[in-house]
């Protein structure tokens, strides 16, 4: 049973890599290694906290839960453990570099313990973030779904600010922006498009939503970044993160119209845009490149919406 499941998952990963292509795989791997390196410089409990955030978010949003429970009624929890142990590998790798064996034990324990948590329906509807723009339903959905992840990200950012670890807060910034970004890549419902007066109005609204909502979502983390070492330079870095993150969200909203089928090209575009965001946030001169991409994408999206409206 375990054998079949692992074989199936490995096959899907291999096919995903094959479909994305060598270049995109290399980019993802580079991003991944950079993240691992950045994390390895941080206290070990940060790594454990990040692992908890990832696993809990995955555990409570697994789309295959009913399927696995139907076909493996007595052993589906073992399959969850396989998944969570696989995800634990890079985290254990990070902790091995600093020989933090107790934390390795904690991570292993969590991989076995979290599948035992029953997936009960919550007695209330999860709230979304307050003050998000009215009508920006994709942001509100992302805010609701990512609430546990966001809470832990905020905690890690606050700890980063408290202990004065700039890298940690930057990593939290990037992972939060990238995670919210992927949640924005929802397939568009063509019927919704007809509610817009015009393509220009749609683009204008998307711009407003991107800049307003980024300030709500990212501001607490950016404040943590500023508090690491309050200075004008740090303020500049925060501003660069805010502008570039807003542009990333806007680009991803435009991408939904340019690639409405949400196929592999959309995934590759998402990866490229996220890389551009990281680059331009760290090296502000690249903000102009990001701005140019945003303008081009806005024009493409404008014509796509026009086509849908006609």
């Amino acid at each position: 049973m375990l054998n079949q499941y692992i074989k199936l998952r490995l096959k899907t990963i291999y096919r995903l890599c094959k479909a994305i292509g060598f270049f995109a795989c290399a980019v993802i791997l580079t991003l991944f290694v950079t993240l691992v390196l950045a994390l390895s410089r941080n206290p070990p409990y940060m790594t454990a906290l990040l692992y908890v955030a990832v696993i809990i978010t995955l555990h409570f949003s697994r789309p295959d839960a009913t399927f696995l429970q139907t076909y493996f009624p007595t052993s589906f929890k073992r399959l969850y453990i396989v998944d969570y142990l696989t995800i634990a590998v890079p985290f254990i790798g990070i902790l091995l570099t600093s020989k933090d064996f107790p934390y390795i034990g904690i991570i292993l324990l969590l991989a076995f313990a979290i599948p035992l948590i029953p997936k009960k329906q919550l007695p209330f509807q999860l709230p979304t973030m307050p003050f998000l723009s009215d009508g920006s339903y994709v942001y509100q959905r992302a805010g609701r779904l990512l609430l546990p992840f966001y809470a832990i990200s905020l905690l890690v950012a606050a700890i980063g600010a408290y202990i004065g670890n700039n890298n940690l807060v930057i990593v939290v910034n990037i992972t939060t922006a990238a995670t919210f970004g992927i949640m924005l890549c929802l397939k568009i419902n063509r019927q919704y498009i007809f509610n817009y007066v015009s393509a220009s109005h749609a683009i204008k609204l998307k711009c407003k939503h991107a800049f307003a909502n980024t300030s709500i979502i990212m501001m607490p983390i950016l404040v943590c970044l500023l508090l690491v070492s309050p200075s004008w330079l740090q303020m500049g870095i925060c501003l660069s993160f805010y502008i570039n993150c807003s542009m990333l969200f806007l680009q991803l909203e435009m991408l939904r119209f340019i690639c409405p089928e949400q196929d592999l090209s959309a995934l590759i575009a998402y990866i490229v845009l996220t890389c551009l965001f990281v680059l331009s946030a760290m090296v502000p001169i690249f903000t102009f490149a990001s701005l140019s991409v945003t303008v081009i994408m806005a024009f493409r999206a404008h014509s796509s919406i026009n086509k849908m409206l006609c």
Partner: protein
Amino acid sequence: MLEIKNLSKKYSGKTVLDNICYTFESGKIYGIMGENGAGKSTLFRCIMHLEKFDGDISVSHPRKIGYLSDTPFFYSFVTGMEYIEFCLKASNLPIDKQKVITLNEKFALPLERYATNYSMGMKKRLMIMTLMLQDYDLVVLDEPFNGLDLAGVILLKQWIKQMKEEGKCIILSSHIISSLTDICDDISYIHNGKTVANFTGKSANEIEMEISKFYLEFSQI
């Protein structure tokens, strides 16, 4: 075959199923109807032990129970054939490719393509075909007609009738009253988590009139 005694289910204080009792026998087709949120899917999930519940659900002796969920799920980058193979292996059944191909002559599915790229109707047909290959004693079908195309509906009805002839038990839910009256031996109606009526032997028109008169807030539009 399957007996449900005093089944209750609450979600955070809200009663979804209230003291439900049922007896399902072999060689019969049972239809369950009800509005959205009435508790049909929860009842099915309880039968499959996908949810915890109060009460008792007992099966006469070890039986294989199949389940068709209302929302299809397929892993990305897995072909239709691989999905079938995975499900058969999970059920400890041998994979007879020739049998799959022969059955697929009716279903006309592109089994070499990724299942996630199928249309809704094709996904539903793939799930039904996979169930058909597993030879269950009791099958629970949650809204099986939803999203199915004409050919799929015909195949599903034929399969359900065939299973009945083989002495198997089928429990299904649907919003389409005529689909249930066409094939079901017993039709019950769940309203606010309770079984409030049994429409066995009545026509679709009579059922419609009775539901709108006694259970829904509107009687005429």
